[in-house]
C-alpha cells in the first residue's frame, strides 16, 4: 500500500510547476466526543445550527473561499443525515468545488477516519485537515506557501498547525472557547513545534521539558497564550503515519505528541500563527456561545448571516447589530435588544424582551416572555410568561406558560416543559434517556458508545414519531405537569466541570473558587521547596510530590519496586523474588546493573518509608532491610559496574527522592562495604569517576572522603600483616 502511494506523491511533486495539483481538504464531520449530548444523540454536531445555519456550511464556505477545490467529507455518526443534508444543499453542484462524502460506520476516532481515507487512496498532495465544526475566515495562501517551502527543504516537515493568540484565563485554566489551556514550546526562528501539552495535569506545578529540546536551539519560547485552531495543513505522509501507527486515535493527544516524542523518524511539525484572521472550533457549548457571538459581532466576516444567506430566506442587518429575516411578526410592545438574531417567520408577542439571543425560524414566542443570552432553534413554541436565561433550546421544543430555564440548561429536540416548571441550572433534558454505558473517562469517550447508539438512532429516525407518542405518557412528571422528557442525571466528573462548558456565563464564585485553588497550588509549590543541605539548588526540589519523581523513573523501576514491596508484605522467599526480578529484566530488556539499581532504590525507599523518628533509627531501618534482602541484591552485583550503579543510584536518591539519606551517605556506604554488598574497588573507581565532575556533584564524595581515605590506606596494612 505504501509504495504506490509514495510514488504517486512524488510524481505530483515533480510536476508541481507544470501541473497544478488541486488543493484537497478532509473535513471530518464527527467530533468523536460526547460534549454536545444530549443533542447529538439525535442530530450530528455538524448540522446543528450556528446563528441559524448548520455549522458545516461555515466550514465548507470557508474552504471554498480559501481556494480548496476538492473536499472529502468523512461521515460517521448520523452519516445518513449528513449525506442527506449535503445532497439537498447546493454543495454537490458547485463549479470548481467538489464535495465527496466518505462514510464509515465503525470509526471511533479521527485516527480511524484518516485510516479509512488512506485506504480510499484519494489524497494526492498536501491537504487541509479540519473538522466540520470549524469557523474561520483565514486565508490559506500564506500557510500553504510556508508549508510547501519547508517541505522542499526538509521532507520531514509533515504538518503545519494553525494557531492564534488567545489569552487563557489563568484562574480557571480555560480559554474563552471553553477549551483547556495548552502549553506549547515553539522555536521562535523556525516556528517548529517542540512541545505540546493539552489536558494539562493541574496537580503538577511545573512544565517538564527535555534538555534535548534546547540542544539545537539557542532559544525557544513557551506559550500559554496561544489557541490551537485545529486547522492543519498536512502532507500526504500524515495519512500513512496514521496507518503505520494503528493506535493513533486523537489528532493531538496521540498523533502530535507521538511525532514530537519520536526522534527516530524525525518528523517535524510547524506552526503558523494568524493574527487578524478568525479561526475557532466549536468544541463545547461554551465555544458555541462564544463563536455565535463572534459571528453576530462580525469578526468572522464574510461568514455572517446577512452575507451567507443559506437557503431561500434573506437576513438583514439592522442597527445595533440586530439581524432579522423576513416575515417576522413582532408586537409593537416587544423589544429585541442589540446583537440578536431573529429567524424567518417567527412571531413575537406583547411585552416580550429578547436580549443577546438567537431565535430560529418559525418560532412562536408569547407575551411577557423574557429571553436573555439564549439560542433558540427552529419551530420552538414559548408560551406566555416564560423566562429563559442562557440556555440552548432545540427544534420543536414547547415551553408551557410560566415555565422557566435557569442558566446553562440544554433542552434537546421536542422536549416539552410543563406549566410553571423551573428547569434547574445546568440541566440536560432529552426525550431519550441517558445512555447507560457512558464512560466518563475522557480517553475512552470516543471508543465505544457513539457508533452503537447512533446506528440505532438512525434506524429509529423514521419511526421516531410513533416512539415519541409512547414516551408522552411515561416521564410526564419529570418536567412538571404536561412536560415530556428526561432530565439527565449528572454523571460524576461531569458535575464538577459542567459550568466550564455551558453557555451560561461563569459565575463569580466559581472564579473565586478557582483563584483560591490556584493560590493553594502556588503555596504547594513553595512549601515543597526545601533546599538540600548542600545549598546547591536542584531543580527537583521544586516538586512537592513524589509522584513526579516516579514519573521520571521508567516503568521498569516502578515494576521492580512494586515487586519488592509485594515480596516484603507477602513474605515471599528471596529466590522467588530473584526469579521475578529476572523475568522483569528479560521482559524490559535490561541489564543486571539496572536490576541492581532498581532493587536498591526499592529497598532504600522502603526503608525511608518505614516510620523513623531520628537519623539513627533510619540507619537501623536501612540495615535491617539490607540484611534481610542482601542475597537478592548481591545476585545482581557480580560486576564492579553494577556496584557503581548502586552507589550512583544512592547518590541520586540523596539528592532527589529521599533527601533524608543525604547526611547518612557515608555511614550507609560504609555499612554496605562491611556487608560485602559493595566492594572496595567499586567505591574507589566511583570516586575516580567523580573527580572530573562538577563541584556540585562531588558533595557525597567529599562526605565519604574519610572512609575512602581509610579504604586506600587499609590494603597497605594488610600487606604489612
Amino acid at each position: 500500500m505504501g509504495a504506490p502511494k509514495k510514488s504517486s506523491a512524488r510524481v505530483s511533486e515533480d510536476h508541481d510547476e507544470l501541473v497544478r495539483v488541486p488543493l484537497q481538504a478532509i473535513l471530518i464531520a464527527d467530533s468523536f466526543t460526547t460534549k454536545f449530548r444530549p443533542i447529538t444523540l439525535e442530530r450530528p454536531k455538524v448540522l446543528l445550527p450556528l446563528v441559524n445555519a448548520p455549522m458545516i456550511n461555515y466550514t465548507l464556505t470557508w474552504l471554498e473561499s480559501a481556494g480548496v477545490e476538492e473536499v472529502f467529507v468523512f461521515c460517521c455518526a448520523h452519516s445518513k443525515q449528513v449525506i442527506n443534508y449535503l445532497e439537498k444543499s447546493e454543495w454537490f453542484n458547485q463549479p470548481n468545488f467538489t464535495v465527496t462524502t466518505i462514510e464509515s460506520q465503525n470509526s471511533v476516532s479521527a485516527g480511524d477516519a484518516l485510516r479509512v481515507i488512506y485506504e480510499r487512496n484519494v489524497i494526492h498532495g498536501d491537504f487541509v485537515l479540519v473538522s466540520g465544526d470549524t469557523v474561520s475566515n483565514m486565508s490559506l495562501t500564506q500557510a500553504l506557501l510556508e508549508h510547501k517551502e519547508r517541505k522542499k527543504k526538509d521532507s520531514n516537515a509533515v504538518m503545519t498547525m494553525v494557531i492564534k493568540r488567545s489569552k487563557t484565563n489563568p484562574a480557571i485554566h480555560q480559554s474563552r472557547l471553553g477549551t483547556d489551556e495548552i502549553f506549547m514550546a515553539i522555536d521562535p526562528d523556525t516556528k517548529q513545534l517542540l512541545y505540546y501539552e493539552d489536558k494539562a495535569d493541574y496537580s503538577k506545578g511545573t512544565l517538564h521539558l527535555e534538555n534535548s529540546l534546547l540542544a539545537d536551539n539557542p532559544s525557544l519560547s513557551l506559550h500559554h497564550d496561544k489557541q490551537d485552531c485545529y486547522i492543519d495543513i498536512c502532507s500526504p505522509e500524515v495519512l500513512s503515519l496514521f496507518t503505520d501507527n494503528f493506535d493513533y486515535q486523537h489528532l493531538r493527544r496521540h498523533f502530535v505528541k507521538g511525532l514530537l516524542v519520536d526522534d527516530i523518524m524525525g518528523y517535524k511539525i510547524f506552526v503558523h500563527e494568524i493574527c487578524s484572521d478568525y479561526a475557532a472550533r466549536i468544541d463545547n457549548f461554551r465555544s458555541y456561545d462564544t463563536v455565535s457571538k463572534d459571528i453576530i459581532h462580525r469578526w468572522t466576516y464574510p461568514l455572517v448571516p446577512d452575507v451567507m444567506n443559506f437557503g431561500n430566506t434573506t437576513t438583514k442587518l439592522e442597527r445595533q447589530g440586530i439581524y432579522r429575516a423576513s416575515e417576522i411578526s413582532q408586537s409593537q410592545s416587544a423589544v429585541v435588544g442589540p446583537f440578536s438574531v431573529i429567524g424567518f417567520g417567527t412571531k413575537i408577542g406583547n411585552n416580550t424582551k429578547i436580549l443577546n439571543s438567537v431565535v430560529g425560524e418559525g418560532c412562536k414566542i408569547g407575551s411577557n416572555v423574557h429571553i436573555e443570552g439564549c439560542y433558540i432553534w427552529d419551530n420552538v413554541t414559548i408560551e406566555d410568561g416564560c423566562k429563559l436565561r442562557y440556555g440552548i433550546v432545540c427544534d420543536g421544543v414547547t415551553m408551557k406558560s410560566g415555565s422557566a430555564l435557569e442558566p446553562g440548561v440544554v433542552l434537546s429536540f421536542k422536549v416539552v416543559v410543563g406549566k410553571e416548571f423551573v428547569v434547574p441550572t445546568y440541566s440536560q433534558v432529552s426525550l431519550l434517556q441517558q445512555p447507560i454505558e457512558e464512560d466518563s473517562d475522557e480517553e475512552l469517550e470516543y471508543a465505544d458508545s457513539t457508533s452503537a447508539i447512533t446506528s440505532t438512532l438512525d434506524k429509529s429516525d423514521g419511526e421516531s414519531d410513533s416512539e415519541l407518542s409512547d414516551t408522552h405518557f411515561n416521564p410526564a412528571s419529570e418536567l412538571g405537569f404536561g412536560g415530556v422528557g428526561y432530565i439527565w442525571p449528572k454523571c460524576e466528573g461531569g458535575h464538577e466541570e459542567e459550568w466550564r462548558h455551558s453557555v451560561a456565563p461563569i459565575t463569580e464564585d466559581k472564579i473565586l473558587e478557582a483563584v483560591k485553588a490556584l493560590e493553594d497550588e502556588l503555596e504547594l509549590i513553595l512549601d515543597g521547596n526545601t533546599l538540600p543541605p548542600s545549598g546547591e539548588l536542584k531543580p527537583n526540589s521544586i516538586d512537592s510530590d513524589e509522584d513526579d519523581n516516579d514519573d521520571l523513573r521508567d516503568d521498569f523501576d516502578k515494576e521492580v519496586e512494586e515487586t519488592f514491596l509485594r515480596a516484603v508484605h507477602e513474605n515471599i522467599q528471596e529466590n522467588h523474588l530473584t526469579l521475578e526480578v529476572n523475568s522483569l529484566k528479560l521482559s524490559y530488556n535490561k541489564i543486571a546493573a539496572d536490576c541492581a539499581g532498581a532493587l536498591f532504590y526499592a529497598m532504600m525507599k522502603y526503608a525511608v518509608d518505614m516510620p523513623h523518628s531520628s537519623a539513627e533509627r533510619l540507619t537501623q531501618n536501612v540495615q535491617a532491610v539490607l540484611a534481610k534482602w542482601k542475597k537478592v541484591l548481591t545476585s545482581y552485583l557480580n560486576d564492579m559496574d553494577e556496584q557503581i550503579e548502586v552507589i550512583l543510584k544512592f547518590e541520586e536518591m540523596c539528592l532527589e527522592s529521599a533527601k533524608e539519606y543525604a547526611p547518612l551517605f557515608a555511614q550507609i556506604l560504609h555499612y554496605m562495604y562491611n556487608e560485602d554488598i559493595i566492594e572496595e574497588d567499586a567505591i574507589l573507581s566511583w570516586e575516580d569517576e567523580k573527580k572530573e565532575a562538577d563541584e556540585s556533584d562531588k558533595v557525597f564524595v567529599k562526605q565519604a572522603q574519610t572512609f575512602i581515605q581509610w579504604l586506600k590506606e587499609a590494603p597497605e596494612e594488610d600487606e604489612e600483616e
Partner: protein
Amino acid sequence: MDFQVVVLAGGVSKKLLPLVSKELPNALLPVANRPVLSYVVELLELSNLKDLIVVVEGKDVALNVGAWISGAYADRLHVEVASVPEDVGTAGAIRAIAHHLTAKDILIVSGDLVSDVPVGAVAATHRRHDAVVTALLCNAPISGPLESVSSGGKDKTKKPGRYDLIGLDPTKQFLLHIATGAEVEKDLRIQKSILRAVGQIEIRADLMDAHLYAFKRSVLLEVLDQKSAFQSLKHDVLPYLVRSQLKSEVLLNGTPQAEENGTEKVNSQSNQQMISQILANASEPTFHLRHTLGTIGSDSVRRAHKCCVYISGSSKYCARLNSIQAYNDINRDVIGEASHLSGYSFSAHNNIIHPTAELGAKTTVGPHCMLGEGSQMGDKCSVKRSVIGRHCRIGANVKVVNSVVMNHVTIGDFCSIQGSVICSNVQLQERAILKDCQVGAGFVVTSGSEQKGEVLAKK
C-alpha cells in the same frame, strides 16, 4: 545615587591555579598588565559609583588587595576592603558584611567582571521597576571553558558556551526562570503558574548571568537571614527570588518599612493604580500587577515581586575571568577587539609598546600586542597577539604567540611560547618549547624541554 556597591573579589580560586596565589589573588591577576579588579572599579567609577566595599576571602588577600587599592585609587575613590572567611560562598560573604549595608539598594558585582556595560543603566532599570533584584545578562562567550572540553566525552549534548538557561517575558524586562550550574544540563522545569500569568516565556540558552546584581537591601538581607542554607547568590538566592516572584514570601515577616517596601505598595493600591499605570505608560500593565489585582474580592492578598534583567547589547563586551580559558580569552580581547577597555592608547601598528621597552634588531611585535615597561627583547624575535609584562628579559629568536607573559620573566634564546600563560619570575631556559601550558610563578623551565598542555608549577 542611593546605591551601595559591593565588589565580591574572592580569594584564591582553585580554577585559576597555578596563576593565582596568596600573593597574587584573583583580584590582582593582571589583564593587559592591569589587575582585573581595576576593570570593575573603573567601570563603577564611570557611573559615578565611588563608594565601594570590596569583599575578599582571607586576611592575607585583604592586605594585598587593600594595599593595591590604596595605592591606585586613594585620591579619587572611597574603598573599604572587608575580609570574610574562605568558602562561605557569595551569600555568606554578604551575610558577613550585612551590618555595613545601609542604602536602599545594593549593587553586587563580581570582581572578575571585565565589561563596558553601563552599570548606571542596570541601576536605573532596577529603580524603574522597583524590582527586588535586577540581573545583568550578557551574551554567552563563544569560546568554551576548559571543563566542557575535558568532560565532553561524557555528555555529547553539552555545547561550549552554555552557562545558564534564562526565561524572559516577551518584553525582555523580567526574569521568569533561571537554571544555572549543574541544572543547565538537566531537563527544563518551568513553573506553570508563572507561565500562566505571563502567557509566554522565552527560554534563552545564549545568555549568561554576568554576576552583576542590583538587590533591594531589605529583601536581600531578609532572604539571607531566613534561608541559612543559601550559600550562593547566583545559585540559591536569585533562583529563589525568581521562583517565588508570584507568591512572594519576602517582607511577610517583620515590620515592613513603608518607604522601602515596593510589594506593599502594589498590594495596597488596587484598580486605581492599574488604571493610572495604563494611562501613564499607554501599555499593558505588567503581569505582576495583573496577578496581584486578580484577587479582588478574595480574602487573601497576593504578593508579588519583580525580578528584572538588563540585557547588554551585543556590541558591549562582557566576560568573567573565572577560568584559565577565560583568562586567555579576556587578555586576547582586551588588547584586541575590545581594546577600548584596556585604557591604553594604541600605536599606529595597533599595539602598545612602552617607551622604555627595548627591541632587538629584526624583532617584530605584531598588532594586538602589548609590551610592558622596561622589558627587553633580543634580535629576531616575533610577538603576535600576546601580552608581555614589565621588566621581562627575552633573548634572541624567541616566538611568543597568543600568550600572556607576566612581569620579571626571563626567556632564553630560541624559545617558543604558544597559547600559554607564564607567571611572574619564571625562567625559561633556551630552546624551551611551550604550547598551551600554564607556568606558575617562579618556576624554572629547563633548557630544551618541550611541553604541551601541561601545568607547570613549584611544588
